[in-house]
């Protein structure tokens, strides 16, 4: 078994309320140097056997068709996970 990681982030111009809430919270635990926080999504797709180019292509398809909405999100990474 191996895994493919897909990372999805909201587009930079889209409001990220969760990121804002986290950014507001950081100073309260004493960390004052982070000026902004953006929260994204990480998906781990498990496959049987090795990660092949074909499986990576299918993961890219999944990322584009289901895991992200191109109106508000960008797929920023699709790669095999090193164990």
């Amino acid at each position: 078994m191996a895994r493919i990681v897909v990372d999805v982030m909201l587009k930079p111009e889209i409001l990220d309320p969760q990121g804002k809430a986290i950014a507001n919270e950081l100073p309260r635990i004493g960390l004052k140097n982070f000026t902004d926080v953006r929260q994204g999504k990480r998906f781990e797709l498990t496959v049987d056997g090795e990660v092949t180019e074909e499986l990576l292509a299918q993961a890219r398809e999944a990322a584009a068709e289901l895991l992200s909405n191109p109106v508000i999100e960008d797929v920023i990474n699709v790669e095999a996970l090193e164990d």
Partner: protein
Amino acid sequence: MAESLAPTEVPLVGDFSQPTTDSALSGVRVGVITFPGTLDDRDAARAVTLAGGTAVPLWHDSTDLQDVDAVVVPGGFSYGDYLRAGAIAAKAPIMEKVIEAANSDAALPVLGICNGFQVLTETHLLPGSMIKNDHRKFICRDQVLRIDNNETAWTSDFEKGQEIVVPLKNQDGQYVADAETLEELEAEGRVVFRYVGVNPNGSRNDIAGIANKRGNVVGLMPHPEHAVEPGFGPDSSGSGDVALRGGADGLGVFTSVLNKLVSAR
């Protein structure tokens, strides 16, 4: 029917004892889809019934549209808003048929309310998307809307520019689209419902609801199906004073599609 009811006479539980008198209207079958996590399907079905039509429950996992003449995709939290609001429901078997019928020559009228609007954007029947409200809170209030397009399948019983009051309740209500899409929507008059007064969620161009190019598919965030029955609606109306909970401005959305379908026969 119920305009004459004084507040004290309003039944606690809906009373359908007065059958619809217009058999042409009751011959119109309007499907209401239920996904896991849908909440407002019963209200939508009730609105269809109160408008004089026949509501037909449709199940997400079926591929049978049961010969309905129109479809409502109701509000709620389909699949718990997992992944993105409406994203999983958009891939449901029944939606495949709805997309097909909406894009066919017959141009099946489809209305998406709240989460149903989110589902329709995820299917790309409607452009743009909904993100969290700009103030980051869930909002629930009676909302004034202006009808900017009364030529769609779902707004033909209204006057252009008419104001209506219906409930608004959501957390992912901020309508967004790229500049090009917004320009196209405005130029083609496809903004159907617009927020009046303070923008409740940061939606671009105060957009509350939009239509596709042919006007058979309409989506909006506020809930017309919650303002169809005196005694259970908002405390205000766009057309003058009403009794407490007497607002029923949303009914026009449902009578629009029924009358349009009947006159097309």
